């Protein structure tokens, strides 16, 4: 018969091992928002290259990626141009990455420009998908000039929890003609977006000019 103390020790060890086995989703989920409005459409080939070489390459098995198009009205299912959850096996995940690359390249060739740019709608759509993954790290990357123009009759308001705990970064933000005349308008635009996002529960908006910092941002 096993004595008392060894049994207690064994039970404690099992409990410890069970508590150590975390059910938390340690993977990351990345939402990429690509603007195709008139002022930004020229950037599309470069953006797709960055997404392929910088974002796809940095993803690990188990991570998720959602690519959302920013056009006239972005808050609709059709704007989700790519959605993948990488397999836990590296070889399978690599295959998925190659397929996504092909998909994005064909998108870059066929994409049409839009008159308006509904950034908020794309943000809300991507946020819903990111939240659904339950990933520990949720990152939103916006490729846009951050100039939002909504068609008449479109309303976009963020709730206080819409972007909860998400890390948001704007990349390859091009300067508009008006920014060149008055740089403060660019800064004001960035500040306004920062205020809106933090109000929606996101972390502070990061504007990244150096694309080489992208892997660092995703690894954080």
């Amino acid at each position, binding site marked *: 018969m096993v004595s008392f103390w060894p049994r207690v020790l064994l039970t404690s060890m099992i409990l410890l091992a069970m508590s*150590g*086995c*975390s059910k*938390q*989703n*340690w*993977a990351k989920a990345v939402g990429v928002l690509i603007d195709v409005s008139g002022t930004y459409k020229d950037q599309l080939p470069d953006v797709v*290259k960055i997404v*392929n*070489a910088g974002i*796809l*390459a940095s993803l*690990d*098995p*188990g991570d998720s990626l959602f690519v959302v198009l920013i056009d006239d009205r972005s808050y609709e299912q059709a704007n989700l141009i790519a959605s993948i959850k990488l397999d*836990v*096996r*590296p*070889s399978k995940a*690599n295959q998925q*990455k*190659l397929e996504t*690359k092909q998909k994005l390249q064909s998108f870059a060739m066929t994409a049409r420009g839009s008159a308006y740019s509904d950034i908020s709608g794309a943000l809300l759509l991507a946020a819903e998908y990111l939240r659904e993954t339950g990933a520990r790290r949720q990152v939103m990357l916006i490729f846009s000039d951050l100039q939002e123009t909504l068609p008449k009759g479109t309303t976009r308001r963020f709730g206080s929890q819409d972007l909860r705990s998400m890390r948001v970064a704007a990349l390859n933000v091009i300067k508009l003609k008006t920014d060149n005349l008055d740089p403060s308008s660019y800064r004001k635009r960035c500040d306004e977006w920062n205020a809106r996002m933090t109000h929606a529960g996101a972390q502070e908006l990061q504007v990244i000019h150096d694309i080489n910092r992208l892997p660092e941002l995703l690894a954080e």
Partner: protein
Amino acid sequence: MEFSAPWIIGGIVGSQFFLFFARQPIHRALTALGMICSGGFRLSARWARSVADQLWEHNRQTVLNAGRHDSAKKLEREFIRLEKTFGKEMSSYPTYHRKLSEAITQIEKDFAECGDTPPEAPGWTTAVKELSKLAKGSDRMVETVLQEIHKSAVSAEKRAIQEYQQATGKRHKLLAGLQPHWKAARSALESTGKVVEETLSATRHIDEVMTKYEQVSQQKPPAVTALIGSRVQLFLISLIVMAIALGGAFINFNLIALPMSELVPAGTRIGTMPVSTVAALVIVLLEIVTGIFVMETLGITSFFPRLENLPRSRRRLLLTGSLIFLFVLALIESSLAILREQLVEQEGALKQALAGVDAVIAAPAQSSIPVIGQAILGFILPWVLAMVAIPLEMLMSSGGTVIAALVTFVLRLFGYLTRVIAHLIRFVVLILKHLYDIYIIIPLQVGRLMRSKQARSTSDG
């Protein structure tokens, strides 16, 4: 607020008088404070010294016990070796002895034969000589007889010489035949000498081990110092070997960590570590554990006394099982190493493809040397890691002594420092008292003068 000189002088004089009258209680307070502080430090020093002494004594006893055990084992081994030497070498001694006896007997016999001289010519030659003297110039008949006698004497002499020569030749042949017997005797003697020499050498070694055992048993200080020295040396050597083995384990771990993610889900984690990493770590640890079992069943290490007491058949079974398990682990690692190489190639090609350099994807690996190298490394490393059990045991057995010696040293140093601080406090209090007296020197001297005057007047009265 400013003070003028008279105020300051007044204050000093006032304080001197106050301190003069408060001298005794303040001295007593300072003495008490010094005693409290220095006493505390002295107590700490005493405690540290006593703990250090106890620890040292315990360590000494442990080392002595271990040394005694080692010496006893060595002695036992030497006796077994001696027994084997005696059993092997001395069993051949009767043969050598018989050979030697036979050779000597043969030599004696041959020698005796050599000693046999051929019979001399008949003794009548002297008579014939006398007769020839007598009969000179006498009868012709007699002369003829004498001539015949002379002839027969000459022929007899010739025959005798011939026989002598034949006998000498035979003797020489016999003497020549003695040579192999001499050689056999010499060889038998040399073999016996060798046996004796080996036996003497074994006994000399036993003497040395016995002397050491006696020294350890009698707890002689040089023996203790030598034992501790050898333990420290053992500790350092095993530490170096363990560090190298740790490096091997690290390489091993890195070799299988990446391919393990193909087998184990990468999403789940234990703590902050992915399960695949933990699995790779577990495999490396399993190799070490299996190695420990192999060494244990071989009788090289003794981590588990229960295993030592197992019957020989069961130990052999356990050894076979452990070796098979280790072989399987080595095969798994080898295949994982090959998989790793493929994954690394795929990863590189994927990165190139994502960056837009499509041509590289199709480029096959030019050389199979890295794959073969990694596979061999993956197969060998588990066996190398299995050897860790030996330095691990050495480290554990000698580590206690070294750590205890270090703790003893630290405690003794602490005790010494606290004793020095206690002394310093005592002297600081003394200096403070003197400084106090210097400050109130004027009223103090005045008081002393008055007291002496009073004493003198009392004695005069």
